[in-house]
């Protein structure tokens, strides 16, 4: 059989740039995205696009100029978000988004700093940082996209994989229970805790905007389909089917005790705003307890 191959065109940088210039700006939210980086790398049916759009919508709603915002992400499919946003972003090493962002928040308390990362990054390799930043109440907005597995490396079991769920490293079903993230965040000291699925984009935008008004450590879990790594082995179907699954399974219960929000395979998923409370953040405590005393001591010595 004779094959007709498409003639190879040599790469034309000028045409490419022109294409990007003309294409960029067609969508009303393009101003937040880096020209030339879309299409993204995520699989069809992945929930990450919804999570990113919700974040951008929230910025838009709050009328935050991009130069007052910064996004820090760790490793994994969610980590790629940092690369798509047209603002100061940092794609850090695996698990270290929170300590990196803590440094940034202390150096630049004037910025809105969001940590955007996955469940594996934030709660396995970076779990220690997460609980301590929440305890300290560092002024960080954490958005954790939870898809119950390590998607990027091919669907291995992680810290949120429910008991009995199948992944590429738990072919017989997972022998470990997964974390209940809102419960953990609450117990560690987060002042704002919410959970939505990507089937709840409006509520998610609302929660993200609301978290920007809180001073301290806020935590929003976004349950997202990963049809490749999690949906397929657990027979949840393709991306759309997995969205339907989240629609069927989720039950909105604002103010619910996060302790009751554990997720099991094929069981209901509690969503809503669970915690919204006030307590002084790290910088406020530091200024009042350390800096103020140090200055008083200096004055005392001078007198």
């Amino acid at each position: 059989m004779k094959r007709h191959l498409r003639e190879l065109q040599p790469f034309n940088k000028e045409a490419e740039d022109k294409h990007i210039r003309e294409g960029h700006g067609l969508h009303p939210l393009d101003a937040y995205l880096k020209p030339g980086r879309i299409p993204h790398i995520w699989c069809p049916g992945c929930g990450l696009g919804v999570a990113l759009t919700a974040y951008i919508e929230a910025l838009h709603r709050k009328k935050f100029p991009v130069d007052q915002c910064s996004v820090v992400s760790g490793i994994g499919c969610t980590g790629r978000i940092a690369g798509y946003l047209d603002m100061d972003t940092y794609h850090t090493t695996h698990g270290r988004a929170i300590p990196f962002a803590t440094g940034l928040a202390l150096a630049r308390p004037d910025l809105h700093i969001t940590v955007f990362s996955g469940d594996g990054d934030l709660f396995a390799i970076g779990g220690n940082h997460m609980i301590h930043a929440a305890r300290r109440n560092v002024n960080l907005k954490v958005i954790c996209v939870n898809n119950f597995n390590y998607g990027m490396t091919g669907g291995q079991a992680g810290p949120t994989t429910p008991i009995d769920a199948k992944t590429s490293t738990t072919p017989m079903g997972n022998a470990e229970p997964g974390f209940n993230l809102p419960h953990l965040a609450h117990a560690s000291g987060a002042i704002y805790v919410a959970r939505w699925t990507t089937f709840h984009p409006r509520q998610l935008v609302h929660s993200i905007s609301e978290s920007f008004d809180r001073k301290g450590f806020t935590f929003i879990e976004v349950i997202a389909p990963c049809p490749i790594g999690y949906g397929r082995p657990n027979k949840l179907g393709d991306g759309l089917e997995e969205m339907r699954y989240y629609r069927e399974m989720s039950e909105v219960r604002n103010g619910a005790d996060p302790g009751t929000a554990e997720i099991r395979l094929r069981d209901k998923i509690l969503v809503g705003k669970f915690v919204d409370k006030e307590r002084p953040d790290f910088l406020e405590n530091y200024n009042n307890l350390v800096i103020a005393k140090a200055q008083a001591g200096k004055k005392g010595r001078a007198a």
Partner: protein
Amino acid sequence: MKKVLMGDHAVSHAAMLSRVQVISAYPITPQTYVVEELAEACRDGRLKAKFVMVESEHSAMACIIGACAAGSRAFTATSSHGLALMHEMLHWASGARLPVVMANCNRALGPPWNILCDHSDSMSQRDTGWIQFYVESNQEALDTVIQAYRIAEKVLLPVMVNLDGFFLTHTAEVVDVPDQDQVDAYLPPFSLPYKLDVEDPHSFGAICLDDNFMALKHDMQAAMDLARDAALEADEAFAEIFGRKYGLLEPYRMDHADTVLVTNGTITGTAREVVDDLRRRGVSVGLLKVRMLRPFPFAPVRSLLGDRERIAVIDRSVSYGLAGGLACEIRSALYGHDHGRPRVFGYIAGLGGKDVVPSDIEEIVNRTLTYEQPPRDDIWIGAGT
């Protein structure tokens, strides 16, 4: 039995054949297939082992250290940043004299992020007290992991088997998978002389200051010296049963070669082709593959390279502010000994997955033959400079 296997699966087959008892790991590209296959094998009963997917590479190494201290044959695999995160535990495994084995799928370190092959991950860990091998093919990866347990358990030091990310890990080749009976004959069940045992309690990891610390470190260095012989013995015994043999170094067409290329990992395969081609064209060039990097095989390097005119070493990593690591080791082996003084040219190539193609190696040979003296200690190929 002959099978078509990717490098990652060659490694997992080797771990299964070695009858490992505890496996602990954390996923990182390009290592994931190694542990996925092992998880699968634990499920379908091909392997009777306990498998745990932990929360980081640091924990993975700590976990197999614990398993080995209790007398189990333990295994893990990692790559790049995962290996870097294990650094503290690497010292611990060797200092505690625990013969664990790890496969490292060589990958560059960020930033900028890169998932492709170079040797900067394992070269950064040369001082941790681990025996290190670099392999050229999937067959060699499988065979070396099995040999590694025999060596490790003989000298009580851990072994890292390095295979090039993607070039081996994700490339399928025909691999002769040995029979379990033969491997059992080669590798007897593991028995650790000092272990955690409630019947015979000991304290491990206790503090030891200026009284005995140095003596224990000297013991480690002595064990490294023994590891060269142990590796040769393991290789000979392997050849007797399986008919394959690799050596610590592998000389290729070195007869009367004035110029010798020195390589490790997959660049070696390409270099063989170039050497054949150049020999056909009458250039007197040979090739030396360095399979064992720790302990460094000083004596054979000296005798094989000492009386050559020019040596061209290709490094797939850099010690920043110095030069390529392998080039430095070759130079240090040759300096101050009783032989001629070859000029050592150190080349840096193939960082972050950049292909090292035959024309690059030919350029390296040409440059080596043209320069009067090395223009500097590190000559970069393919950096666009």
